[in-house]
């Protein structure tokens, strides 16, 4: 059944109630609680990330949205004294647990950060590095994958004549697209974006947004953003986090046109706080 709207607060709720029958769940988050020491950062989060859709996470600073997105590829494990309970399934496979290789999870679930973080290497090496780390030595294969990744990240035309220049010479927007190309090179299935345009000008921002819309044809995408217009422009679903709780998740048009929860309304209309 296709339903226009619903608020999801309980684990019994399921995104499949508001999506098309052809949509499938790529990542299922179930009963997640997360602590930094004794401080609880996420409370009873239940959420489905649908395949080939863009899911935006919005909320005020400190609401847990970045913490949440970093759980999806186990990045938070790198932070000491953290505790996680609950389950996260990627294509039905539980990715929390010692028997699962976090490096393999991070290959399948790539991440682009707020600030572009290219390696202090050439443009070419920034892309080839991940392949080499994964044991690929065939130079022709690597070259082809570098070109393919740069094309997919809509950067190829701008750098094709200077592949061996330092990546640090690129503009901020180009560096961010290079980071996206670096993710794409290892053929992930999911892309996580944590404030990807926070440090970019409007033109670079628009290019990243167009890229996200293009990439969702082949990838499942989750994006954390403070920019609500950006969430409105690029996402299919939007979740509002507040004080570690998922307050409301719905189709993006419903969230921005007629949210169900007053706390969501207050936040997106700027009456919050």
């Amino acid at each position, binding site marked *: 059944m296709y339903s226009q709207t619903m608020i999801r607060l309980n684990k019994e709720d399921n995104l499949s109630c508001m999506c098309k029958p052809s949509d499938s769940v790529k990542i299922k988050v179930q009963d997640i609680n997360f602590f930094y020491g004794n401080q609880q950062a996420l409370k009873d989060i239940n959420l489905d990330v649908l395949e080939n859709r863009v899911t935006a996470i919005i909320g005020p600073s400190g609401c847990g949205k970045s913490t949440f997105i970093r759980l999806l590829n186990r990045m938070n494990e790198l932070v000491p004294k953290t505790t996680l309970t609950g389950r996260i399934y990627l294509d039905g496979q539980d990715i929390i647990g010692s028997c699962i290789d976090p490096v393999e999870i991070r290959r399948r679930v790539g991440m682009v950060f707020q600030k572009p973080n290219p390696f202090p290497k050439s443009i070419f090496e920034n892309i080839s590095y991940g392949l080499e780390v994964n044991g690929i030595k065939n130079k022709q294969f690597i070259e082809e994958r570098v070109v393919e990744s740069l094309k997919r990240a809509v950067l190829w035309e701008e750098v094709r004549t200077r592949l061996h220049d330092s990546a640090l010479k690129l503009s901020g927007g180009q560096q961010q697209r290079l980071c996206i190309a670096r993710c794409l090179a290892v053929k992930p299935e999911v892309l996580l974006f944590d404030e990807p345009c926070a440090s970019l000008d409007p033109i670079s921002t628009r290019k990243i947004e167009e890229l996200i819309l293009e990439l969702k044809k082949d990838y499942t995408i989750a994006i954390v953003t403070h920019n609500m217009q950006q969430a*409105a422009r690029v996402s299919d679903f939007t979740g509002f986090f507040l004080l570690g709780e998922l307050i409301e998740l719905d189709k993006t048009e419903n969230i*921005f*046109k*007629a*949210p169900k929860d007053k706390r969501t*309304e207050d936040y997106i*209309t700027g009456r919050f*706080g």
Partner: protein
Amino acid sequence: MERHFDHELDELNKNILKMGALVQEAIFKSIESLKTLDKDMATLVIDNDRVIDDCELKIDEECLVLLALRQPMAFDLRFITMAMKITTDLERIADLAADIAMRVLELVDKPLVKPLIDIPKLTELAKMMIKDAIDSFVNKDPDLAGKVILIDKEADRLRDIVQRELINDYILKDKSSIPRCIPLLLIARHLERICDHATNIAEDVIYMVKAKVVKHHPEKLNFDKGPQ
């Protein structure tokens, strides 16, 4: 936390209220001119229509600026977009008031074909519906808006009575009465259209407040479960 944007929305609200007051005045005067067959008052209504046209343009511009600069969301978005639609209805109501005034000018040198009975009833209904529709917008009152929508059928009924009476009792019996009957037929039609525009405004108010579409779906007027 108070927003600067709230002051701009208040200003928009006030401008719509002003336009609403001008429209109500236009209806009132057009109807008064009919009752007394007052040529000067009818002419005044026709001349003043451009003031209301200017109001519409000003409010439309104000809404466009707010949409472009504030990029409103949720209720703010619904408020501004519905304000644009409501001003269009208000402007059409003012046009209809001017149309009534033009019919009055056609009638001034002719004696009325009959005493007015149902047209004054329709007139009172139209005035009440417009007032309630504007009040429901200004006070963001979906219950009052719902009442406006439900009462619209009465306007249709009164228009039908006027039409039947004029056609059956006068036009069909005495063709010489046609020049005096046609303006009255049109006035009944104009008044009924005014009620339709009041209904449109009320439907927009319900969408604005409850995010619920009742346009073309009056059965959805039971809106206990809304977002606010």
